[in-house]
C-alpha cells in the first residue's frame, strides 16, 4: 500500500518531497491506530490543511465502509445457504493460520532471543489463558518499552560524550531517519 501512496503523492502529484515523505511515514507508522488513516491524515494536512486532512481520511475509509455495508446487508441470509456454510467451514481454519503465521514472522524480525522470549510468551498466556484484556497488556508493554528506551537513550548519550565518532554510527543506526542517507540510497540504486 505504501508504495502506491508514494507513487501518487510523491511521484505523480509532487505534493511532498521524497525525503520528507519517508521521514513522516516513519513517525506516522509509529502512532497507534489505522495506518492508512494516519497516512491519509498526514498527507491531507500537509497538502491542504485541516479540510485536506478530513478529505483524505474520508477517501481512505469510504471504500471499506461501503463494501462492508453492502456485504453486511446480504451476508446474514447469504451465509445460511448450505453451500456458503461449507465454503466458510474450509476458510475458517485457514484464517487462523493466516493470523498465526505473521505473528511468528514478527517474532523473528523483532530478533527475540531466549531471554526476551518471555515477553511474547507472557503476552499470549495473559490474553489467551487468563483472559486479561489486551488493553492492560499493551499499557504494561508500553511502560516497559519506554523504560527500556530511556535506558538505551542514556547509554547512547554516554557514548556520545566518550567518543564522537562512534555515536555518529550509533545514532544513525538507532534513528535511521536522517533524510540525507535516504536520498543517497535512492540515488545509488538506479
Amino acid at each position, binding site marked *: 500500500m505504501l508504495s502506491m501512496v508514494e507513487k501518487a503523492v510523491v511521484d505523480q502529484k509532487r505534493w511532498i518531497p521524497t525525503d520528507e515523505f519517508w521521514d513522516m511515514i516513519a513517525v506516522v507508522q509509529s502512532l497507534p491506530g489505522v495506518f492508512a488513516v494516519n497516512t491519509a491524515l498526514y498527507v491531507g494536512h500537509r497538502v491542504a490543511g485541516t479540510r485536506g486532512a478530513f478529505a483524505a481520511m474520508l477517501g481512505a475509509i469510504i471504500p471499506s465502509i461501503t463494501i462492508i455495508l453492502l456485504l453486511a446487508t446480504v451476508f446474514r441470509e447469504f451465509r445460511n445457504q448450505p453451500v456458503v456454510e461449507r465454503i466458510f467451514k474450509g476458510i475458517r481454519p485457514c484464517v487462523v493460520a493466516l493470523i498465526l503465521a505473521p505473528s511468528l514472522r514478527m517474532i523473528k524480525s523483532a530478533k527475540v532471543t531466549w531471554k526476551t522470549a518471555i515477553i511474547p510468551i507472557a503476552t499470549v498466556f495473559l490474553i489467551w489463558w487468563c483472559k486479561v484484556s489486551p488493553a492492560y497488556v499493551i499499557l504494561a508493554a508500553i511502560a516497559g518499552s519506554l523504560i527500556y528506551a530511556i535506558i538505551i537513550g542514556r547509554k547512547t548519550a554516554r557514548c556520545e560524550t566518550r567518543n564522537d565518532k562512534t555515536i555518529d554510527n550509533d545514532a544513525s543506526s538507532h*534513528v535511521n531517519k536522517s533524510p540525507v542517507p535516504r536520498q543517497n540510497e535512492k540515488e545509488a540504486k538506479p
Partner: protein
Amino acid sequence: MIYLQLLWVFVKIGVLGFGGGYAMLSLIQHEVVEHYGWMTTTDFTDMVAISQMTPGPISINLATYVGYTTGGLGGSLLASFALCLPSIIMVYLILKLFMSKKNNALMDNTLKGLKPAIAGLIFAAGLSMMNLQNFPDFGRGQYNISVIICVLAFVASYFFKANPILLIVLSGLVGFIAY
C-alpha cells in the same frame, strides 16, 4: 446506550492499536466477542476472512460490520469514525508540535521494545480462534480436514509467503468439496 458503548470501545482500540491491523485483532476480539458478545468467534473469523479478501484496512472493516450489526447504519458510521478519532487528534498534535530527533529516537526504541509483545498479541488472537466452532471436525472421525487446512495454510504462509487471498479461495474450495 449502544452508541456510547460503540464509541468507547472503538476509541479505546484506536488509542491502543499499535502495530497495525493484525495487532488490533486481539483488542477487537476481546471487546467485541468476549466482553460485549456482539459477535461470535465464528462471525469474527468470517469477517476477518472477508476483510482479507476485500481491499481496505481490516480494523475499519470490522468496526463497520460490528457497528452495523449492533446499531444499524448509524452504528457503523459511528464505530468507524470512533476508530479514526484518536488518529485525527494524534496526527494533528504531531504536525503542530514539531517532532525533534531526540523524541523520535525515544519513540523508535519504545516501538522496538513493544514489537515482541505485539507479536504475542497477534498470536493470542489466532489461538482464541482455535475453537470447536472453527474446527468442527476436530477429534471426530478419522480425518481432521480443518486441522489439515490450518497446517497447510500455515506452512504455505509462513515458509512460502503465499498470497492470503489465494489461500482463502483454495481452502474455501476444499471446504466446498470436503464437507
